């Protein structure tokens, strides 16, 4: 356990050596203004849809999310995910938990990863943590996955033979073609990317980077993605949640 904690600390060292900043800071003032104002932030369209879905009954028992979770009770929840799922004995991310709640508790048809409904619900839940510091749980059962995530982050992959760390730890703030390389803190997911012209999850973003280095991406919902998310969230601990954020 001590060995693991030490390894984590060492892996996170390059990122901590410099001042941590959200990708928000590197955006053009226009894009920042777009995120700040809820009436011009397109991510709010999904968050509002999620608010409706939250109250909408689903499944044979006619239960909605709001039947169990009071309105506004999800404050701070997105800041502590991924968490440990006792039922599956594995870490689970927020979207996974929402989908699990829907199938196991409501008995409703499953929501696919990156489906409009799951993104909308994740945005609605995430929005309630906006402004709160990212607070990864100290659960020791998550450590193994965190270490795996750190290893995946540092592992070279794809035909370009690049690791996440080679850009996001070694060269943040510099440019890759026309874009500024951010420090890769997942503060605002699910977020509206202007490139996507839609809301998308962190897994979609990771997939984009992986195909970018000509690596085969993992399948949506793969434990590897959740491990990377665990590591990234512990690396971003303390930064404010921005969901739904806007990125170029």
């Amino acid at each position, binding site marked *: 356990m001590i060995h693991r904690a030490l390894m984590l600390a060492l892996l996170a060292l390059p990122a901590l050596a410099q001042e941590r900043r959200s990708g928000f800071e590197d955006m053009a003032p226009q894009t920042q203004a777009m995120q700040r104002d*809820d*009436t*011009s932030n*397109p991510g*709010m*369209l999904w968050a*509002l*849809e999620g608010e409706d879905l939250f109250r909408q009954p689903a499944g044979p028992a006619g239960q909605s999310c709001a039947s169990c979770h009071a309105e506004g009770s999800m404050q701070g929840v997105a800041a502590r995910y991924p968490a440990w799922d006792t039922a599956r004995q594995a870490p689970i991310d927020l979207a996974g938990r929402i989908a699990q709640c829907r199938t196991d508790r409501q008995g409703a048809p499953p929501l696919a990863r990156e489906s409009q409904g799951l993104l909308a619900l994740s945005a609605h839940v995430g929005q309630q943590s906006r402004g709160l510091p990212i607070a990864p749980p100290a659960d020791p059962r998550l450590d193994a996955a965190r270490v795996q995530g750190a290893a995946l982050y540092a592992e070279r992959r794809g035909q370009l033979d690049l690791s996440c760390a080679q850009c996001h730890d070694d060269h943040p703030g510099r440019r890759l073609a026309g874009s500024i390389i951010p420090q890769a803190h997942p503060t605002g997911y699910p977020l509206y990317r*202007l490139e996507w*012209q*839609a809301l998308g999850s962190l897994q979609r973003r990771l997939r984009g980077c992986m195909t970018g280095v000509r690596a085969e991406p993992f399948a949506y919902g793969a434990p590897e993605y959740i491990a990377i998310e665990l590591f990234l969230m512990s690396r971003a601990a303390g930064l404010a949640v921005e969901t739904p954020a806007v990125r170029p």
Partner: protein
Amino acid sequence: MARVLINVPRTAARGEVITIRTLIQHLMETGYRPDANGVVAPRDIIRRFTCRYDGEVVFQAELSPAIAANPFLSFTTVATRSGVVEMSWEGDNGFAQTETRDLTVT
């Protein structure tokens, strides 16, 4: 019904220049994009936006396939009298949506 975000001030002073901002959820499919099987998706865009203030057209826009999804429009008008601000979007496949907001001029 597409989801919309509209920012119209509730009240304004007579003669004041007010800013109206609208954002509507729409795919704005260009009609030029082939999918994974090489089949080009048919065009599906919003073609026209009209804003009427107290029955009078104060702003109109023609949208083209080059405009991004979820189009955001921001424009100004002068608050003259209390009335209804009516915004309507029309597009392909019979897309039509109208939203109204009340504006009180003091």
